[in-house]
């Protein structure tokens, strides 16, 4: 394909827009393609405030962003950059940052906020309504609740839900009636914010799936690694400041065990050995019954 040429017919604002986008694309080492998810303006502003210092966000039309990416790829002699276009979908925006792609993903994920679910949307997870009072006075709301399958009744003068109920399972399409009810109950099952479609850094485009870090799993691995190291140090007697005490204790504990097992009296174990013999004597005494015991023992 020959190089892209801007003809005089293309609106100048588009040219400016593409140039502006190209500038953005060259401004950071890490470029992310974002889906705006129709995030409401209030939330968007909150998110912008959160990310202001660490990244630059720019929304635009997909076609213009595509053109900008292609041109930058060519200008910088970096064809792999165009792979980012493959991730494009829905309402996209671009982010330029120096942040590590994994951290970027985490940051944007954490900046998402709960939002109500719209009619016709798919439930992202099981939506459960907990039992309790809705705070609403008796009225048509009662039948609305019942219409969506909730066990509702008047309790202590207010409309209440009698037991925990799952009104929609993950993947279910939410009806208009249910959407209204959930909204009235102030239940926000959706997470809106900036959705990562793909992140480019150093010739590689990272798929969002790869960028997810399971923190619990990571923590478990860290702890397991530490414990393993601790064990190795003690078991192989490779002393470190963190394990020398345990090594000493283990050696002593072994010595104690052998001393007691062999009934070899030492100042550290005479009590335990005499105690063991006494315990054995008492155990046999129990079996011997009343008549064989003296008063002292019975005590």
């Amino acid at each position, binding site marked *: 394909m020959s190089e892209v040429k801007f003809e005089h017919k293309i609106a100048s604002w588009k040219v400016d827009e593409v140039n502006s986008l190209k500038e953005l694309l060259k401004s950071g080492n890490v470029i992310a393609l974002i889906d705006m998810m129709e995030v409401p303006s209030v939330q968007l502003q909150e998110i912008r405030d959160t990310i202001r210092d660490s990244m630059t966000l720019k929304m635009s039309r997909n076609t213009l962003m595509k053109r900008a990416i292609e041109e930058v790829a060519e200008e910088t002699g970096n064809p792999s950059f165009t792979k980012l276009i493959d991730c494009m979908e829905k309402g996209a925006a671009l982010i330029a940052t120096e942040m590590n792609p994994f951290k970027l993903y985490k940051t944007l994920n954490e900046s998402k906020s709960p939002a109500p679910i719209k009619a016709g949307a798919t439930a992202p997870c099981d939506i459960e309504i907990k039992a309790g009072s809705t705070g609403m006075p008796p009225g048509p709301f009662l039948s609305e609740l019942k219409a969506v399958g909730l066990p509702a009744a008047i309790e202590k003068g207010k409309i209440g839900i009698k037991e925990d109920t799952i009104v929609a399972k993950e993947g279910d399409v939410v009806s208009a009636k249910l959407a209204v009810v959930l909204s009235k109950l102030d239940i926000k099952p959706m997470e809106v914010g900036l959705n990562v479609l793909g992140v480019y850094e150093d010739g590689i485009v990272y798929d969002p799936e790869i960028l997810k870090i399971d923190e619990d799993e990571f923590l478990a691995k860290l702890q397991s690694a530490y414990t393993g190291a601790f064990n190795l140090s003690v078991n192989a007697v490779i002393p470190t400041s963190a394990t020398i005490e345990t090594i000493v204790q283990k050696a002593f504990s072994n010595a104690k065990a052998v001393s*007691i097992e062999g009934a070899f009296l030492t100042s550290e174990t005479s009590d*335990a050995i005499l*105690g*063991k013999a006494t*315990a*054995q*004597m*008492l*155990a*046999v*005494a*129990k*079996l*011997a*019954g009343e*008549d*064989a015991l*003296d008063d*002292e*023992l019975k005590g």
Partner: protein
Amino acid sequence: MEYIYAALLLNSADKEITEDAVKAVLTAAGVEADDARVKALVAALEGVDIEEAIAKAAAAPVAVAAAPA
């Protein structure tokens, strides 16, 4: 408790726990053996698995501070 220790001693020497045996041990220790008690002891320990009783008792006392659940 001398009587029980006598029994334990005989047991560890793989000797039969008879009235005469127990008496002999006690006497050697300078104890005036009570015939009735010796009889009762021997009778009571008849058929008793001393090894088993000893094994069960071997668990060393441990100071445990049970932390609330």
